[in-house]
């Protein structure tokens, strides 16, 4: 069984997709890390619920 050698354009497209995937995954990880850092901050407080609204 033989597979055709992928064309240069397919390699380039794969590289672009892989790169974008990794960048998006890193972005998700960064936003998650930022969220943890922000809520762990001493200054952080959960907004008070407005009693009159309930």
């Amino acid at each position, binding site marked *: 069984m033989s597979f055709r050698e992928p064309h240069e*354009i397919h390699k380039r497209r794969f590289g*672009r997709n892989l790169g974008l995937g990794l960048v998006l995954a890193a972005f998700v990880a960064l936003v998650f890390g930022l969220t943890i850092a922000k809520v762990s901050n001493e200054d952080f407080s959960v907004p008070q619920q407005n009693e009159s609204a309930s």
Partner: protein
Amino acid sequence: MSDASISASETPTGEAGFGDFYALLKPRVMSLVVFTALVGLLAAPVGVHPIVGFAAILFIAIGGGASGALNMWWDADIDRIMKRTQGRPIPAGKVTEGEAFAFGITLAVMSVIMLGLAANFVAAGLLAFTIFFYVVIYSMWLKRWTPQNIVIGGAAGAFPPMIGWAVATGGISVESVLMFTIIFMWTPPHFWALALFMKSDYEKAGVPMLTVTHGRRTTRVHILVYTLLLAPIAIGAAFTSIGGPIYLAVAVILNAAFLKGAFDIWRRDEVSAEADGYRTEKKVFALSLFYLFGHFTAILVQSMLAPYGIGSW
């Protein structure tokens, strides 16, 4: 997609590689942005959570890269003419102008919003202004209009330490303005030293450069004047909270060397410069890189030692 469409030797639209988009961000310029912004952030008297600091520097770098991509989109016509820039992704046919614009504007908006959310909106506002300044004021307006383009346009490259400082403090202060001024005043002599020995084709592209519009003698005078104005600012920073004895020693040595170099450039004429292959100009250009790196490293060292009570006045 048929085989016929993929066997074409040139596939200029929609098929750029990841590296082509990365090249649009001007990675070498981005490294200077990262370094100076990091120094601004660490020299500030307020601590920042490491993840927030990392994210802030990343978004500043992306913002800087976005303005590079938008600059390449706007300057695609002259990049095709000049030899030095013909290999850039747009003139090389790897990325279309529309793709570069979409890429740049998306990253610019994203980086400003994310910096605002990660740090504060003073830093985000400064980043937005930096991108606006580089793309609209420098690239679209000044670059093709005045030979002082590099002087005013240099401000865009001078903002990163101010943004880094604003990330930590949420504001602007004398120290951050001084860091801005050092880079702002350093850019013209640095660039013009390069312009003296680089045979560039700006003239062919219709970009007014001082060496062409006012001659090389005037450029030599300008280098000396800017270096003379830069020295007291760079040394004066030693007496603020970002300075100290280590910074003062480094600044005095580097400014003495830079002034001597600028004086040597001013003293020379074109005949002697051509005779030795622009040795002095090349030496001063290399020194100018070391000059900026040295000053900001000294600020970084001072801020690293400060918590231990070492190195400050």
